[in-house]
């Protein structure tokens, strides 16, 4: 492909710089590509000790940074942890290998509702194993708002001008606007998207800032009354500032799922499956959950949580059947993605 040569060059340079001194375990190696801060480092050590497979671990910041590396095949990975819509894109572009579930008996630990939800992007559950999931909702400060919040409308409320924190990402921002207008968050309808864009422009005047990870710290520090946030951060923020409350708005929201997949060109496919199976073990999944605090789809691990308040916490483990308007991001194709980006740029530069 076109980006191939350039990346190959970079790969050669990196290989020259990092290649020396690599020690392979007696049973080979597994090359893992995961989100930053998304695994308990002890888990990797335990895996190496138990299986004799050495782990080469690499991190990415966004799905979009990860994707070209897999597409170009310049650096080979055995197991990657992208999000829902990106998995769909990778399936469509034939970058993923089917997982042999005979090698992953621990899949039985995964609660079936997450596998069913996964079918939105992986229709036959052939390519992915859910690792973490969550919702996107509103985090609000009880002392700074008049009444309990249950709707995205609050983000357009003039009374909270300069007290609102929005997510600085295309899909999440448009999800909020589209859901509020009663549309699907996977809409590609031109008029619906224009309407969403217009409402986001209106909202920009009320927004204090567009942020990503900083929502957490700003809400804890009482900088704003209302913020859009991932549920995985909600439990942590509440433990730091008891006035904070997380809610899934009644218009519905996004359920995101990050899952393990195996690229087609993975050099150590069997080790990758061993790695996934290891992470699906109840005690390992629990250890990981306690470290990263993002909700685990592992039912067996959830049963092991000793703190009752967390185990039955509707923020961490919402019952999907209670909602009929939860969706998962779909890959919308190159043209629609481009359209979203262009509209978002219009909002941001307005």
């Amino acid at each position, binding site marked *: 492909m076109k980006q191939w040569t350039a990346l190959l060059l970079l790969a050669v340079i990196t290989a020259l710089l990092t290649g020396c001194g690599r020690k392979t375990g007696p049973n080979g190696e597994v090359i893992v590509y995961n989100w930053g801060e998304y695994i308990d480092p002890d888990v990797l050590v335990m895996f190496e000790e138990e299986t004799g497979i050495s782990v080469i671990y690499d991190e990415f910041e966004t799905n979009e*940074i990860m994707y070209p590396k897999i597409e170009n095949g310049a650096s080979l990975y055995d197991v990657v942890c992208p999000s829902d819509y990106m998995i769909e894109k990778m399936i469509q572009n034939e970058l993923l290998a089917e997982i042999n579930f005979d090698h992953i008996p621990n899949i039985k630990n995964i609660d079936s509702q997450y596998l069913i939800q996964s079918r939105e992007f992986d229709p036959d559950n052939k390519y992915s194993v859910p690792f973490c999931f969550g919702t996107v909702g509103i985090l609000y400060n009880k002392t700074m708002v008049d009444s309990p919040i249950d709707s995205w409308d609050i983000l357009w409320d003039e009374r909270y001008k300069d007290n609102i924190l929005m997510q600085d990402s295309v899909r999440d921002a448009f999800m909020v606007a589209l859901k509020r207008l009663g549309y699907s968050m996977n809409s590609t309808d031109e008029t619906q998207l224009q309407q969403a864009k217009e409402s986001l422009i209106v909202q920009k005047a009320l927004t204090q800032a567009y942020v990503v990870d900083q929502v957490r710290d700003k809400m804890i520090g009482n900088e704003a009354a209302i913020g859009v946030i991932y549920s995985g951060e909600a439990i942590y923020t509440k433990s730091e500032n008891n006035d904070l409350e997380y809610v899934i708005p009644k218009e519905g929201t996004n359920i995101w799922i990050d899952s393990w997949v195996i690229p087609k060109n993975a050099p150590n496919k069997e080790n990758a499956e061993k790695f996934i199976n290891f992470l699906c073990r109840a005690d390992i999944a629990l250890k990981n959950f306690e470290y990263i605090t993002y909700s685990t789809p592992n039912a067996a691990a959830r049963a092991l949580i000793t703190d009752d308040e967390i185990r039955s916490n509707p923020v961490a483990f919402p019952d999907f059947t209670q909602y009929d308007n939860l969706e998962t991001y779909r890959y919308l194709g190159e043209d629609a993605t*481009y359209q979203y980006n262009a509209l978002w740029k*219009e909002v941001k530069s307005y």
Partner: protein
Amino acid sequence: MNNRRSKFLAAPYALWAAGFILIPLGMIFYYGFTARKGGFTLDNITAIAEPGNMKALILSLILSLISTIICFILAYPLAWILANMKFGKGSFVIIIFILPMWMNFLLRTLAWQSLLEKNGVINTILSFFHLPALKIINTPYAIVLGMVYNFLPFMVLPIYNALEKIDDNIINAAKDLGANRMQTFSRIIFPLSIPGVISGITMVFVPALTTFVISDLLGGGKILLIGNIIEKEFTQDGNWNSGSGLSFVLMIFIIISMILTAKYDTSKEESAP
């Protein structure tokens, strides 16, 4: 012999330049003129004319120009004072002045964020004295403040160097020949410090024009500069071609600004007797 040896000594840098300057530049050039689906195109370059991109570019030019002017106004007198200090004292003050630069640039900008925030340090102090709150966070003012704070040393140091090198005898000669203080400054000192001023301007203007961290942290993501747009093309949109095209346009603007300042520089030198 001597020549050959110096060539040999330059080899490591030549390698470095090839690997980390020429090849990346070539890649930007290549991507900038390639369509996403392959094939030559000018679309990534003309994309600068799109309203959002144009607005960001103009805003970047305005904000970095303002910052450069403010830096110059603050830096010149300071450099003058420092250059006139007795040797030891002056360099001590210089060290004090560049001390913050030993800390990470990101951390210093983050510190400004927590200083300027609604419940930040400055507003807490102001409200303690029942003074009105300072509301510049997430506005262009905060971005200019961040630029001036971060890039001021890059203006002071070259001007200080230029001023320090001016031979006292030249100034004394001017005074002997009847020039008053104003004339000495405008006819002798300032023209001789122009090279320092030029490199100061370049060293402030260029990073200010391309920054995306300062505008992100102090602008609350509500103000898009051209640097932010390019950054988003790579990290969020996964569109390397468009990002490279815009970077290429930005480089052209930087080259133009350098040519303009350099031209000013030589014409001054020629007119100076």
